[in-house]
């Protein structure tokens, strides 16, 4: 019976092409707007490392003095001091730990044809690669020995390796970076992580990733400036050494626990550590020490911009309008078929049968609207992607969103069709059969 | 009251020309109660539509209460309909979303009467048909006979000179039909001219004059006593 109703539904669409076109287009446009904005929101807020996100933690310790402090207000910084980061690294907490900050440096390509240029990179400790499951195309992360002595070693991104050395394995080759010869020890595979949650300060967490990685100790040894943000309270002495000793925040630390349940253990360690530091005269604010897992961190830092949320709300508001519009159109479509319904009822159809028939018709409208809506959404995403690199990464339709398009379209159509279908069932056979 | 001379009405659709009325002649004097009979397709409805200024005619002359209808534009015809004519339809044609008061009110609003005048006329009209107590009810809550009486009240509220009725008892049972006819006869006795189209020969017998239309032409029968005297001037087809 349902297949028969499905065919009837398709046929009825053809019968009144203008009305059908209006209904399908209205629904499709509403669905397209909602799906494209939802796709961007979905990509922005999706967990970039779901297999671990509940047991990767970011600690936040507020080192600022009492001035300018209202207890309970949100901290300005999302980074911590060098001292605190080093202490966390040494703590032995969890399975592994890392500390990192963004750097940038001039590189002199080995091929003379390419002039020197600036690269953006990261200075983490070696556990970073295992923690964030960074795939390697060639070589591997630097050794512990390299890290201990701050050796001049570098890991390149696949793209950068190809640009500098061509399509060969560059491990072992030398590269003039920031004025010193570095040895390439590894090349990372093309690796998409949206957002790049390990470093949310400075730059766009949605654009293509770092081009090179050097050990944190090496960057510090070379007094490499941060390429991100730094926040200092009070007077700091001149020079890099003073910065390391100060309470300026410019480093992020991450702790990988064995399981999500270890959170309370890590939190206690943080609190004990903080009270010890307070005895040494630091951490004057005595603010609560925070610990965030990946989803919590994304929410705290507001990675998903307000604009993305605004656009999504707006699109769904528009879909609501299209829905109300569709209700009216469906009412019109069904009301002109009152005599057909009367005849069907007279010939033995029950109310439930009429309900099923017309509901399936709305499903047909929903599916056709979904197809058109999908095409429009893909087009819209392409258009949005043209506005920038970060957007191009985000405006990608995946299978989940594709399926969601049809779900939204059919659900919207069915929702819109409930009232008209119910009305259709109320038609009494007798009255409609009279000629008047 | 009403005079048509050599009237004809032609319907043209694509390839087909239909002559609904041909060389139609009729004169109705003030105060008469005329029934119009004829088989289906004879042109009764066209005649009534033209008499009621609902349609234009193709040629001939029509004078209504001294006014030559020919040169009038749509607005003037509407005004004339509103002031001089009253309509009663077979299907009652009450507006379902308005209560009885508002239904009778419709033509009065177009007349431009003020609120007090309208109220008085509506109450009088509904009282005359015996439905004053149900002013706030809706047509769906009434029987067929009652609905027709409301339609009559609506037709009367504007104190028209000529009442046009199209099969007013067609959708009613015999008892209700008799009630409506008695009401119409009362109204005619009070001085309103009535022109009534009907299928029912029993009703045709009750009136003083019966006009018979066949194939778009008149066969006028005036009742003078129990016998029928044929006074038509044009030969029957």
């Amino acid at each position, binding site marked *: 019976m349902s297949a028969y109703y499905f065919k009837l539904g398709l046929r009825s669409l053809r019968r009144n092409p203008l009305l059908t076109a*209006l209904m399908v287009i*209205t629904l499709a446009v*509403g669905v397209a707007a909602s799906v494209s904005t939802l796709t961007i929101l979905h990509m922005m807020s999706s967990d970039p490392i779901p297999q671990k996100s509940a047991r990767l933690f970011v600690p936040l310790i507020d080192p600022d003095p009492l*001035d*300018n*402090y209202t207890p309970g207000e949100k901290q300005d910084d999302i980074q911590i001091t060098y001292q605190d980061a080093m202490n966390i690294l040494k703590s032995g907490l969890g399975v592994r730990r890392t500390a990192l900050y963004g750097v940038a440096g*001039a590189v002199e390509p080995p091929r003379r044809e390419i*002039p020197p240029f*600036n690269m953006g990179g990261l200075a983490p400790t070696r556990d970073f690669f295992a923690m964030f499951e960074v795939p390697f195309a060639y070589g591997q992360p630097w050794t512990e020995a390299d890290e201990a002595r701050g050796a001049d070693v570098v890991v390149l991104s696949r793209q950068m390796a190809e640009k500098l050395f061509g399509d060969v394995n560059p491990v072992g080759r030398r590269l*003039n970076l*920031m*004025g010193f010869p570095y040895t390439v020890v590894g090349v990372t595979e093309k690796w998409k992580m949206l957002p790049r949650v390990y470093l949310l300060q400075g730059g766009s967490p949605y654009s293509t990733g770092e081009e090179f990685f050097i050990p944190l100790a090496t960057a510090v040894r070379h007094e*490499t*400036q941060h390429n991100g943000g730094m926040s200092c309270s009070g*007077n700091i*002495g*001149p*020079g*890099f050494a003073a910065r390391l000793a100060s309470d300026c925040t410019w480093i992020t630390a991450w702790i990988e626990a064995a399981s999500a349940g270890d959170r309370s253990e890590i939190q206690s360690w943080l609190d004990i550590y903080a009270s010890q530091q307070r005895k040494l005269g630091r951490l004057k604010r005595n603010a609560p020490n925070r610990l965030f897992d990946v989803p919590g961190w994304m929410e705290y830092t507001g990675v998903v*911009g*307000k*604009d993305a949320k*605004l656009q999504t*709300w*707006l*699109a769904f*508001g*528009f879909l609501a*309008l299209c829905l*109300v*519009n569709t*209700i*009216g159109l469906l*009412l*019109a479509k069904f009301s002109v078929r009152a005599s057909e319904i009367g005849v069907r009822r007279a010939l033995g159809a029950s109310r439930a049968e009429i309900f099923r028939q017309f509901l399936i018709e709305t499903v047909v409208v929903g599916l056709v609207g979904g197809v058109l809506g999908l095409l429009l959404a893909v087009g819209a995403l392409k258009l*949005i992607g043209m*506005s*920038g690199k970060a957007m191009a990464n985000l405006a990608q339709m995946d299978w989940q969103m594709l399926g969601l398009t049809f779900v939204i379209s059919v659900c919207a159509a069915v929702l819109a069709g409930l009232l008209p279908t119910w009305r259709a069932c109320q038609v009494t056979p007798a009255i409609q059969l009279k000629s*008047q | 009251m009403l005079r048509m001379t050599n009237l004809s009405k032609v319907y043209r659709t694509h390839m087909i020309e239909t002559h609904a009325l041909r060389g139609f002649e009729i004169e109705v004097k003030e105060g008469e109660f005329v029934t119009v009979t004829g088989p289906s397709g004879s042109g009764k409805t066209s005649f009534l539509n033209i008499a*009621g200024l*609902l349609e234009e005619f193709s040629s001939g002359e029509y004078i209504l209460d001294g006014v030559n209808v020919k040169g009038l534009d*749509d*607005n003037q015809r*509407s005004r004339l*309909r*509103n*002031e001089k004519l009253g*309509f009663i*339809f*077979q299907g009652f044609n009450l*507006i379902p*979303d*308005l209560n009885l008061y*508002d239904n009778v*009110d*419709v033509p009065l*609003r*177009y007349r431009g009467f003020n609120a007090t005048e309208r109220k008085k006329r509506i109450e009088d009209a509904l009282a005359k048909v015996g439905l004053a107590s149900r002013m706030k009810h*809706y047509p769906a809550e009434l029987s067929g006979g009652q609905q027709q009486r409301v339609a009559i009240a609506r037709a009367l509220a*504007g104190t028209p000179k000529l009442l046009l009725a199209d099969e007013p008892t067609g959708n009613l049972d015999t008892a209700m039909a008799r009630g409506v006819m008695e009401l119409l006869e009362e109204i005619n006795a009070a001085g309103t001219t009535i022109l009534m189209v009907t299928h029912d020969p029993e009703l045709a017998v009750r009136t003083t004059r019966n006009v018979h239309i066949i194939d778009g032409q008149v066969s006028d029968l005036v009742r003078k006593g129990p016998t029928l005297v044929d006074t038509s001037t044009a030969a029957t087809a």
Partner: protein
Amino acid sequence: MEIRPIFSALMRNKTGPILVALQVALSLAILANALHIVNERRDIMGRPSGMADEHAVFRINVRTLGNETPEQQLADIKRQTEVLRSVSGVAAVAQVSQMPLSTSGSNTSLALDPRQSKESAVGSVYVSGDSLIKTFGLKLVDGRDFLAPELVDVNEATENVYPPGVIITQPLAEKLWPGASAVGKTMYFGTGPEAQPTRIIGVVENLISAHGEFNERAMHSVLIPQRAYGGGRGTLYAVRAEPAQRDRVMKEAETALRKSSALPLILDLTTTDEDRSNKYRGTVTVSWMLVTVSLLLLVVTCCGIVGMASLWVTQRRKQIGVRRALGARKIDVLRYFIVENFMITSAGVFGGVALGLALNQLLVSKLEMTRLPGGYLIAGAVVFWLLGIAASYGPAWRAASISPATATRSV
């Protein structure tokens, strides 16, 4: 005018009118808020930088490959500044720590009194050893520009020097000393016992911050007279070209710098126009999206009104014929439908105003947007009233054309 009977008839058949009114309400609510946000963003993007003819200004980031000593960097700065000045078409050059709207720069906490615990304002810090007033084309409204002896060289690797005198922007002066002249007054960098005092030497009309924040902070800038070097970063130059010569000057400046240096340089040249468009790219995208959806809202609502009105005309053919038979003129029928539609639109408009305020409240609380000024709702109401009348005109005209003879036809 038959308002009451029209209203009663509408009440008997509520579904259709409610659907139309709901569409109008939704559209109005969303439209008012969307246009408000678009206008706000437009105002923000239109904020002047404070620079005269900003199209003529561009920046050059210079990095060397090797690690220079601070002294070498200072020599480079002096040499490169001269080289740039000698390029034909260059009106002014300044070595500077940050550029307006470039999203890269630093802020400092400012206070009126070191004993305060809370800062009085936050300023975007422009450090330059040359005249920024000249290079940026800033308008001096009080006090004076820095004198040559005040422009000192500071080695950031070894010294931490706070300037005895600074120039600030007028909005910042207004915030710190409302209604009074700021010149000669003392201001502190930071708060607490370590706060450093400085005197206000001059006030410029405006200079937008490096980060271009979406609030008043963008207008609070501080100019510090220092030629800073040895900070471990490259050097940044601001260059003003003669009007309409910018692109040529950029090419020649690049060539001149490279020629003047024995070592290879990494140069990055960006115009202020590019900085501005990059800064606001996201905002532009959102604005376009809001405008597009607003237009679609109007189109969909208009279609909805036209559709419903047409449907009612078709459904009430017989009734319209009867009215005509009873004496309604064409204009009476037209007026009936337009009045009926006006009532429905009005219900929608009132609902829309309430819904719009509620939506705005939601946006304010959840997305930190600003309050909706009443003007948008009023303007929106007028738009939808007009839209309703225009949309219903066609179907109303069709209704008026229905022949009175429809009353007597049996089907």
